[in-house]
């Protein structure tokens, strides 16, 4: 009972803080938040003027082709308030049927070949593919392994013609954002 009351108070405090931040001027807000004995979370949002300039709608589908999950961590980070990818009109979607861009991470493992093919085929045109990370470019440290194979022709072609490679191991969220901008600029 006491717990739930505490929790409700905290929720209200967070709301109040946020509203105060929206409404009050900065100096006043600081004083208010100090008065509330709260340690409000402050951070600097990444500024990307070249991305903010144009309004767009882009749905992204992620396809793991055997990555080490480093790229996934950074892709997930894009949704947090610091990078806030949605403000650019870019959104991660849950089905390839909805997607405009396929982001492939990791080298192309043989076991995932069929799944990757099915995913790519499940996307409607126009579809673009981004190869994310060093592994996706040339296999990275896994380059010579028997379990890695060359990407099927159509996917590879899609990357070359309408897609982009984003290097890095893993690329930082900022680099990923810029890469997405590149692919959008490409056509």
């Amino acid at each position: 009972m006491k717990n739930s009351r505490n929790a409700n108070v905290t929720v209200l405090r967070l709301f109040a803080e946020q509203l105060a931040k929206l409404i009050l001027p900065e100096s006043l807000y600081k004083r208010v938040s100090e008065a509330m004995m709260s340690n409000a979370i402050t951070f600097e949002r990444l500024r990307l003027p070249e991305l903010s300039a144009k309004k767009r709608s882009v749905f992204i589908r992620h396809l793991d082709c055997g990555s080490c999950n480093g790229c996934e961590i950074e892709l997930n980070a894009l949704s947090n308030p610091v990078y806030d990818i949605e403000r650019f009109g870019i959104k991660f979607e849950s089905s390839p049927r909805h997607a405009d861009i396929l982001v492939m991470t990791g080298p192309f493992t043989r076991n995932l070949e069929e799944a990757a093919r099915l995913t790519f085929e499940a996307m409607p045109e126009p579809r673009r593919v981004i190869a994310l990370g060093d592994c996706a470019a040339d296999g990275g440290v896994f380059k010579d392994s028997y379990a890695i194979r060359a990407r099927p022709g159509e996917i590879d072609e899609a990357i070359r013609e309408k897609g982009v490679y984003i290097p890095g191991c893993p690329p930082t969220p900022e680099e990923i954002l810029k890469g997405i901008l590149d692919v959008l600029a490409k056509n």
Partner: protein
Amino acid sequence: MMDPKLFFYLILGAFGAGFVLPIVFRRWRLATYASLVLALAGSSIAGAIWFLQPAPDQVGSLVIAPSCWLEAKLPRLQLEIRIDALSAFFTSLVGAFSTLVALYSFSALKAPHYKEQRHRIASAFNAFVWSTIMVVIVNDVFFLIAALEIMTLAFGYLALHKHSLYLKGEAPTREKKYEAAIAPQVYLIVSHTSTAFLLASLLLLAIKANSLSFDSLRAASRSLDPAIATTVFLLALIGLGIRAGLTPAHFWVSLVHPCSPTTTHALSLGIAIKVAIYLMLRVFFQFLSPQPWWGYAVLMIGSVTALVNVWYAIASHDLKVALAYHSIENIGIIIIGVGVALIYADGASSTGGEAAGWITALALVASLYHLLNHAVFKGLLYLCTGAIENLTNQTVDMERLGGLIKLFPWTSWTFLVGAISISGFPPFNGFVGEWLTIQALLNGLTPLKANLSFGMVIVIVSMLMLVASFALTAFCFVKIAGTGFLGAPRSLERTRADWSKNDVPWLMRSVMLLMASFCLLLGLVPAWTVGQLSRVVAVIMGGVVMLPGPSALELELVHQPGAPILMPVVVPLAIALALGIVAYALTKILRPAKGTAVPETPWNGGTPYEPVNMQYTGAALSYLTRSVGPASSKPPNKQKPDHPAVAPGIPDGAEPRIGYLPSEMEISRSETYPQVMVEFFRETYNKWIDWTLRNSETFGDFMQNRDIRRYLFYIFIANIIALVLFLAVRGS
């Protein structure tokens, strides 16, 4: 204007010949078809009776006096036929649908599993239709019971269909074989119980009226003692309730009907079962003067019936069983209208105030409308089921069908129309019936509120149950249509190998299409239909009550308090169509990119698609909904004990089950979490039957000790009781 006498002879001739022909010329295939032609002729005459019948105040009646020697012996026995609007409505309904069924049967009976029995089905069909028509037109207690008996026998004969099929060939499961074996027995027992109660109540009335003729019963209704009236009402309610399959007597419908040939289903479940409703309307409104509490009782029974049966429908995977449960559910909905009408039927005297007549009429119209609707859409659904049965080598298990819409588009799409109708969505007819029923209940609330009556609670509760059953019906048809017809096939190639490659022949198709268009038509012109039905209502209520609409297309119920209640149909439909067209145009204007290949399989998370195992099953679909209900799911009894209650005459090989009536519906046969829904009522009856059978030996030994004196004593006692009863009733 048709002379009732002519009508009687015409149908007697047609159906009689149709009945006799196939029996006499068993080996002659043409006889079967001739019999169907005769049925067609007879039914079409019957179907036309609505338009030929005299005006409501001039009822046509016919007295066929028995020949002189019989008259001398049994002076009261005379066959009287009377066709008023109520009779005409039911006669036409039976006639119209048996016309369609006869047409459909021409084609449908060609299927191999009917081969051995074609002539028997045709013959029994004739008898069945004729007796059903007779039931609704006779004007006399004796012949009513006689007609009911013929009907019972005819249908009992039809219900042997599955049994004789399984005797020849292999039954899909042992359970099915057992069910087919007991179904005719159960039907006969149930029907006779029902007839016994009905007979008791009618005889009670006849004693008071001192005549068997309906006219005198009607005349005597005003002077009836309320206690007697209540007794008559209760006896009739039990008798007719059993026949209509009202809960708690619904158990037999879903057992017996799936065992009869699917061709006659449309008739037997779509219409013949509603004979009980016809009799209820006759007895409750015309032979008795209703008391409000009867209405509440009927209302409760109706809503419980609706809810309980839709609940069991969800658990059944067999298309025919599920549809049978839905039929009773709809009977429940129809009965709800009757119940509301009964509450207000005693006029302005007690509950209703000035609105009473209006509400009664509304409720009766709702009831009749739904009755009509149910006949149409359920008829359609049964015809489609019959088609599927023919096409898929008798597979009607939804969990094994799947993807039929691509194989058999005509059957599937017409079935879908039926499914939408029964789920009550506009613009099809089910919606109108449900809307009218809800309006009747809602408007029935208003006068009760003014008097702060306890009945209000009953009305609200039954309305909630009704709406729950509507929602569950919609759910159930998502399940049926979704698992049976949509998606990809759910059975192996091996199973599907002996399925038909093409859809059903044109004759069946066009009958189904016709029914589907009736669904739409009745949904689009509610006002016209209500106008027609008002004639029937006027007869029932004994006065002229009209519920007109402003136009034939839009139904407006004008009633003093509050604003007029309007059910718009055509305008919104037009708006919706326009919006759809706009949306389509929008997608065209924006010119979608081209060049996407059509994917073979749905998106399944990048894994190869196995349609047999990866589609949602009926069990899985209904799990959540079932989980809110009463704890009727339990794991199946692993060790079924040997049971004493075994139906006599069970064929060898059919294993005895727990209880006489099969009461466990297996939903999922998973090993880790098996799910079974127990039919509570059947299980309860099983316990009773069990008890009886266990004690019957001792009791029987006591009763029947082969001593003639004891038997004479019984006769003596029985006579005394009869005499006392007679005097008691007479005297009061």
